[in-house]
C-alpha cells in the first residue's frame, strides 16, 4: 500500500494556518495573564482568607483540576447561553482557559508563597527594611524564582491544551486545521504540519522562558 502524500494543498493555505497559530498564541498569553491574576487572588485567599473563602477557593481548585478541560469548555459554551449569556466561540474559549489555568496557577503560587520562611521576613524587618522593601526583595523575588519554572511549563501545557477549544470552533490553529481538512481531505498531511507547528511553538517558548530565567534570576542563593 503506497500513499501519495500531497502537501501542496496544505501549504497553499499557509497564511490561514499562520492566522490560526497567531490566535493560539494570543489566546494562550491572554488566558495566562488573566489566569495569573485569578491565581494570585486565589493563592492569597487560600493562605490568609477567612474560612468560607478558603473553602470556596479550595472547591474551585479541586473541581477544575479533577474534571476534563473539554467538559469545562462545554459547560461554559453550551451552559452559559441557557442562562442568557451569549458567547462567541473565541470568548468562550478564552474564559474556559482562564478558569482552567487560574486553578493550576493558584496552587503553584501558593507553594511559592509558602516557600518563604517567616524567619526571612522577620530578619528583613530586623535589619531595618521597610515592609514594602521586605516584600519586594525578600518575598517576591525568591517566590517568583521558585514558581517561575512551574508557571512557564503550565503555560506550555495551556498552549497545547488550547487545541481542545477547536471542539467549539474557536478560530485557533486546530480549528483552522479542521477547516482545511474538510476542504482538501488531506487529513494526515494537515495534522502532521499542525503538530509540527505546535512542537515548534512549544520548543520556542520553552527556550525563550529559559533565557528569561537566566537573565532575571541569575543571582545565586544557597537555600540549603
Amino acid at each position, binding site marked *: *500500500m503506497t*500513499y501519495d502524500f500531497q502537501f501542496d494543498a496544505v501549504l497553499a493555505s499557509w497564511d490561514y494556518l499562520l492566522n490560526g497559530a497567531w490566535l493560539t498564541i494570543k489566546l494562550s498569553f491572554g488566558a495566562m495573564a488573566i489566569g495569573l491574576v485569578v491565581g494570585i487572588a486565589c493563592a492569597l485567599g487560600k493562605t490568609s482568607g477567612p474560612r468560607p473563602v478558603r473553602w470556596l477557593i479550595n472547591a474551585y481548585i*479541586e*473541581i477544575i*483540576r*479533577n*474534571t*476534563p*478541560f*473539554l*467538559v*469545562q469548555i*462545554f*459547560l461554559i459554551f*453550551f*451552559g452559559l447561553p*441557557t*442562562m442568557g449569556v451569549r458567547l462567541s466561540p473565541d470568548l468562550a474559549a478564552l474564559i474556559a482557559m482562564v478558569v482552567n489555568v487560574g486553578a493550576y496557577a493558584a496552587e503553584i503560587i501558593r507553594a511559592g508563597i509558602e516557600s518563604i520562611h517567616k524567619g526571612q521576613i522577620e530578619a528583613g524587618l530586623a535589619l531595618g527594611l521597610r515592609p514594602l522593601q521586605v516584600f519586594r526583595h525578600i518575598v517576591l523575588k525568591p517566590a517568583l524564582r521558585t514558581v517561575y519554572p512551574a508557571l512557564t511549563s503550565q503555560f*506550555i501545557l495551556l498552549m*497545547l*491544551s*488550547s*487545541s*481542545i477549544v*477547536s*471542539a467549539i470552533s474557536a478560530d485557533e490553529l*486546530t480549528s483552522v486545521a479542521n477547516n482545511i481538512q474538510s476542504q482538501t481531505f488531506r*487529513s*494526515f498531511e494537515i*495534522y*502532521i504540519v*499542525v*503538530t509540527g507547528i*505546535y*512542537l515548534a511553538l*512549544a*520548543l520556542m517558548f520553552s527556550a525563550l522562558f529559559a533565557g528569561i530565567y537566566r537573565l532575571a534570576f541569575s543571582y545565586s542563593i544557597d537555600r540549603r
Partner: protein
Amino acid sequence: MIRAFGTNEFLFLLSAVQWTLALSVIAFIGGGIVGLFVALARTADAKPLRWLATGYIQIFQGTPLLMQLFLVFFGATVLGIDMNPWTAAALGLTLNTSAFLGEIWRGCIQSVPKGQWEAASALGLRYPGLMRFVILPQAVKVAVPPTVGYLVQVIKGTSLAAIIGFVELTRAGQIVNNATFQPFLVFGIVAAIYFVLCWPLSLLSARLEARYAAPTR
C-alpha cells in the same frame, strides 16, 4: 424532538463510564509497560538510547494530545490499516501516557543516590540485576505518588476520545445534550462523574506524597 432528561438518560451516562474506565486502564497499563522502557532508555549509559528516549518524550510532551489522537487515527489510513475510533484512542492515549510516565519515572530512577549504583556495581551486579534488585525497588517508592497523580491526567485525557467520535462519558454527554438540550444539567452531571473518579486519586496521591516525603530527608 426534544426529550426530557430522565432516568434513562442518566443510566446512559453511567453506562458510558465503563468505556472511560476501559480506555484509562488500557492507556495506564500499556503506557506503564512502554513507559518503563522509555525511562530505562532515558537513564541508560548508551548515548543513542538516551537521545532516542529524550526525543520521544519531547515530541509527546511538546504537542497536543488531541493532535496525537488525530495523527494515529488518520495515520493508520495512510498505512492502509482500517482504524476505528476505539483502537485509535487506545493506541494514542497509550503512547502519550508512556512518554509522560517515562519522564516521571526517569526522575525517580535518578533520585536514587549515586552511592547505591556504585555499591551495587562494586558487588558485581550487572545492569539487569542492578536495576532489578537495587535501583528500581527504591525508585518505585518515590514513583508511587506522582504515578497515582498522573492517573488523574489519564482519566481526564480519555475525554478527548469524544472528539474523534468514540462514545465514552464525554461523547455520551454530547449525545444526551443533543437530545434533551439541557447543557448545564447534562455536562454538570458528566463533570460530577469525572470528579468522583478523579478526586479520590488526587487525595490519595497527595497523602502518599506527604507520607513518603517525611522519611527521605
